[in-house]
């Protein structure tokens, strides 16, 4: 009789604790925003996949925060790389109760959205926005896991000066392209090169023959383009059509498989940089590449950074033992995380404390590593 009672009470207690556990399981939404439509959709989807891979892995470890079983959920939104849409999307995600956001992809979208997140105390980690302004606004919620344009522009400008005395600069007038181009111009001049032309286009143009012709008249040794691959590819093509021999140089927006696909043989010899290490030189790069490609196919560009950003965010929550944005935000600032892309830590502004930049060149239809530079 006694033993039956004991067994019964144990069963009840077990049942109770199980229901208690089930009641305490919570779903926590993490936002992701990038262009999922439009010319940069391939890069945007890459970010989305990076975050999803990280969150799937984290969920598989059955994380417990503050005594509750937590299931993370990705809320992915399309900002169309558009500043206006980005703020709308930011507000929508906040209304849906996200506790943090990985995004946005473009600086032009990240900067206006960052104010919305800051006003609502939602921590934001951009995997790829490199414009200096993003972290210079003084928002304590803004972080990034990539070196900024100042760091990248310094390296590119010095490299341009090394390639030749006369440098021409074209940008696409986006926050990213223009910001990077301005830094390159400064650094190239500082390194003793002469900037013979500064021209602008836009991020929808395909015809650059007029601009390139007027640049050709100034006989530059190097043409730097601050912009993305859909413009960089026809620009490289038209340089060859015009018989220009200048070295074509670009930032991370050009260092994509799409650039080579679109420019074809004319991509040959182009040089572009990416903040960070090449994937094969990243500490856990090979492992990441394998995992990612099994699930989503070829890595486009920033997927490892988006993946790391999601991990860094959850890491801060675990250290703070809370998914409350206000509570885990201070921990985010103290991050010291060994990610796929390298060691991640933030300075007072939210910028990476250390970050190498790698230069690549197109050889035989593939991007090949030239050298890695510490800014």
């Amino acid at each position: 009789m006694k033993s039956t009672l004991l067994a019964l009470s144990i069963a009840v207690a077990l049942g109770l604790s199980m229901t208690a556990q089930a009641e305490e399981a919570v779903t926590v939404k993490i936002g992701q925003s990038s262009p999922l439509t439009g010319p940069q959709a391939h890069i945007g989807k890459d970010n989305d996949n990076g975050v999803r891979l990280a969150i799937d892995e984290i969920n598989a470890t059955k994380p417990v925060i503050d005594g509750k079983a937590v299931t993370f959920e990705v809320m992915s939104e399309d900002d169309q790389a558009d500043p206006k849409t980005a703020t709308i999307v930011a507000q929508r995600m906040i209304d849906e109760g996200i506790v943090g956001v990985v995004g946005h992809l473009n600086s032009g979208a990240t900067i206006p959205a960052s104010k919305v997140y800051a006003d609502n105390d939602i921590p934001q980690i951009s995997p790829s926005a490199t414009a200096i302004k993003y972290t210079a606004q003084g928002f304590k919620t803004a972080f990034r896991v990539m070196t900024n344009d100042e760091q990248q522009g310094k390296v590119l400008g010095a490299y341009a000066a090394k390639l030749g005395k006369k440098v021409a600069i074209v940008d696409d007038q986006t926050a990213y392209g223009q910001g990077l181009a301005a830094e390159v111009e400064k650094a190239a001049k500082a390194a003793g090169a002469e900037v013979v032309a500064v021209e602008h286009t836009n991020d929808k143009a395909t015809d650059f023959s007029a601009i390139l012709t007027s640049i050709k008249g100034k006989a530059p040794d190097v043409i730097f383009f601050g912009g993305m691959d859909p413009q960089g590819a026809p620009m490289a093509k038209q340089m060859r059509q015009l018989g220009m021999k200048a070295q074509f140089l670009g930032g991370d927006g050009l260092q994509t498989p799409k650039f080579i696909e679109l420019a074809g043989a004319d991509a040959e010899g182009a040089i572009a940089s990416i903040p960070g290490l090449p994937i094969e030189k990243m500490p856990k790069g090979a492992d990441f590449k394998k995992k990612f490609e099994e699930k989503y196919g070829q890595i486009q560009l920033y997927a490892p950074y988006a993946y790391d950003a999601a991990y860094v965010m959850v890491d801060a929550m675990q250290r703070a033992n809370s998914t409350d944005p206000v509570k885990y935000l201070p921990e985010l600032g103290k991050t010291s995380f060994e990610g796929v892309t390298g060691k991640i830590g933030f300075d007072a502004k939210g910028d990476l404390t250390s970050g190498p930049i790698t230069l690549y060149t197109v050889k035989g239809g593939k991007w090949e590593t030239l050298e890695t530079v510490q800014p």
Partner: protein
Amino acid sequence: MDIFAQQMVNGLVLGSVYALVALGYTLVYGILELINFAHGETTMMGSMIAITVIGALFGVAPDLPGIVIVFTGLLAAIPACMLLGYSIERVAYRPLRHAPRLAPLITAIGISIVLQNVAMLIWGKQYIAFPTTLLPQGRHEILGASITDVQIAILFLTVTIMVALVTLVNRTRLGRAMRATAQAPAVAQLMGVNVNRVISATFVIGAGLAAIAGVMVSANYGQAHYYMGFLLGLKAFSAAVLGGIGNLTGAMLGGMLLGVLEALGAGYIGDLTGGFLGSHYQDIFAFLVLILVLTLKPSGLLGSKSVERA
């Protein structure tokens, strides 16, 4: 290198494409006095279909000469676009033939948005590459300007098509029927002209030209995109207005002029204004021209001549 000569070449190549697309606007306007705003998207469809066919054919028979593969792509895109042009007319225009002017304008814009989205669904949101390696890669220096084989082909094709089209309108039965329909549809109908068939023919011819233009654009720039028809369409429309909408020679002239204006403008505006305005104002010229023409000479450069109205 002579910069001016090079900018003229740039402008003429750019202008040829505008001219071909403008011919489509002008043909339809000549007959119906309506702007077919889905025309730019027809151009986009042409280049997308061609790229798909070229890719498929290259996969099946990689040993064929590149030019044959590209030409087959072009030959596939033309009838496909013609069918599309025919369908657009049947769906968006014919039911509204007697409706107020605004209605078919709106349906045309609607069709253009539908086509953009259909293209996005089929080919995705990314830029897709035109296999330019299949084409001759030659580059020539003429009067100090550099021009590629593809660009020479574009100029040559445009002029040939123009001549053929003018001959068609002025020398054939169909052309006469088109001119009659343009003058007075009701009377033409009484005289035994099948007005519906003539209007369909106009749309079909315009769409065929758009297909060729689409293939030219993507062959020259090496890429295509579901959104590419929008700005191209607007600029070609401006070119048609500049030349005098409804006038075939005008469309050609307007297209060429606009191309040259754009190239020279983008090339020299920086130097002329001491850097105050820059090359990023390239897209402004088409619309500046549109506004100027509409205020100063709404009929366009050659618009008053009704003889050649198609």
